[in-house]
């Protein structure tokens, strides 16, 4: 009985750590937990960009690095199933569109390009709260989405190069 359990345990461990390439099981377990925390931290930095240091770009880099952590510990295919390349490209374009939309809405509602129309007319909010500074949080969210997805795509593409290289070396 103990022998069978031991066998199934090792079989499980092997399938988990050898069937998919990547690092050891300790690294994989911890990285799943930590990835969620990093992602949440990145969202915090993006969303409060008008109150604390950070903003769109820094938050986007943190969001991308959470996926890069998964890529390093599990291997490229695992991450590619969760966030495939065409979907990432579309998200990229959506992020850029949101930013352009915020700028054009400034033209429509405010009279000049990129005017902070929410702060001046519709939704001034309280200073030092989350809803303040008008369109700046919206721009931060758009930039965070775009930069995060772009860096993720860059790392994914560069890792695809490496896969081709090691195959040609094997030949």
């Amino acid at each position, binding site marked *: 009985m103990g022998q069978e359990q031991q066998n199934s345990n090792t079989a499980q461990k092997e399938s988990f750590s050898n069937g998919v390439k990547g690092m050891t099981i300790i690294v994989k377990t911890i990285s799943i937990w930590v990835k969620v925390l990093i992602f949440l931290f990145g969202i915090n930095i993006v969303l409060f960009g008008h109150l604390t240091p950070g903003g769109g770009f820094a938050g986007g880099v943190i969001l991308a690095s959470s996926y890069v952590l998964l890529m390093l510990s599990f291997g490229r295919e695992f991450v590619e199933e969760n966030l495939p390349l065409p979907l990432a490209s579309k998200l990229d374009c959506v992020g*850029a569109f949101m930013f352009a939309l915020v700028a054009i809405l400034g033209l429509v509602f405010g009279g*000049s390009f990129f*005017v*902070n129309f929410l702060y001046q007319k519709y939704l001034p909010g309280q200073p030092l709260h989350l809803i303040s500074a008008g369109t700046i949080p919206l721009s931060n969210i758009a930039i965070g989405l775009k930069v995060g997805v772009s860096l993720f795509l860059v790392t994914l593409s560069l890792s695809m190069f490496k896969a081709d290289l090691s195959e040609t070396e094997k030949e």
Partner: protein
Amino acid sequence: MIRVLPAFVLIPLVSAFVLPIFGKKGKSAATLLANLVTVVLLVLAIATVGKSGVYEVGNWSIRVGIVLVLDGLSSLMLLVISVVSTASMLFSTRYMEQYTAKSKYLSLFMLMVAAMNGLVISGDIFNLFVFLEIASLASYALVGFGCEHEELEASFKYMVLGSIGSSFILFGIALTYGNTGFLNMAMVSQAIQSSGLNPGLAFALALFIAGFGLKAALVPFHAWLPDAHPSAPAPISAMLSGIIIKTLGVYALTRIVFNIFGISVTLGWLLVVLGLLSMFVGAFLAIGQWDLKRLLAYSSISQVGYVVLGIGLGGLIIARGGNLAWASLAILGGLFHLVNHAIYKSLLFLTSGSVQMSTGTRQMRQMGGLAEKMPITRAACTIASASIVGIPPFSGFWSKLILVVAAVQAHFYWVAAIIVFVSLCTLIMYLKVQRYVFLGELPENLRQIKESKGTMLVAMVFLACLCMLMGLLLLVPSLKANILDPAVKVLTSGPAYWSSLFNI
């Protein structure tokens, strides 16, 4: 009209993000959209002629915000950019069928056009740097688009030298900000005029000349150009040689030297010497080339030398306190040569692309006798060659005539002699092109080639007609007064120019 100014940057930028969505199935829809965007930009650029003004982005005043400035020089450059990009886009609808990933090409192309438009209308120096970097990045990616051996090597060399140039420019901007405390061009020039040139600002000026000289491929910073321009696909070579080295290099250099720092005698002599060196080195190295596009690239270096020589000569005359009319004539010659060169050099690169697509090679020794098989390409190439050499009544003749007359009038007789001598060298190199590519005997393996089809012909004919009609831009007084004279006036008024726009 001023309220439409952000559209020059916004329309190509939004289309650059829309185009990858089309993917493989909507390739013809994507191409149609891209062509439509360039035609719309051409119409808008024609509508800006003769107007000037300031647009404050976000309703922030000029002391704290970003401004977009439209003046004579900007509208001239916008016209040139939109004409060449329309022709290149028309040409590339058919030419880029040889490559895969056409939607990425279109998206990068639109990004490059948006960045160049933004560069010529920006009113503060850091915004200029950001747009310069966007255009440079898009062009690095486009030069290596085919991912073959030569293209990757050329792209690497171009990228290394371009990044070094951009670092120089950013260092210069940092020094300028540290010494004056402003980034807006008008406020910076006001601060420099009132405080004079301390060593920090002089060093910043030297860094600017090195950085923008690297982007404009002035000798001794020209090492990337003969590798990058031949390896790029033909419409991208046309854009690179026709507009990028001129907006990123010459336009930015003249804006900074004339309107912000104020021209002085040393600076004028420096520009004249750089121009003369470029003319010589470009012409002599081009005569010995056997690769068609490499010859055209070296000839680009030489012709940009003409532009910088004309502008430097005008600046030198102003700095010495000479006759303002002579200086205006020299600057008019330089700017008109810039416009002409954009048009006929892009036409030459487009014809070379058409030849390359039909024969499959770029080496002139393997071509010959293409005149009977490709008559329209041959006619366009002959018109462009006649323009660049300076045969009347084509466009190049008028700009070279103005340069020679300006040099003689200001008693720089040796400069006029050198201009004529380098024109003779240009004649030699283009006779070589005509003889080896189009005249002579048709080799065996090229008997089956046919003329190019469709939009490639339309683009080449469009540019050839413009080549022939460019002389009218100078001779018809209303066109000259509306298009060319405001640009000259911007440069000759120097740092005092901003007070007319801003009321500060």
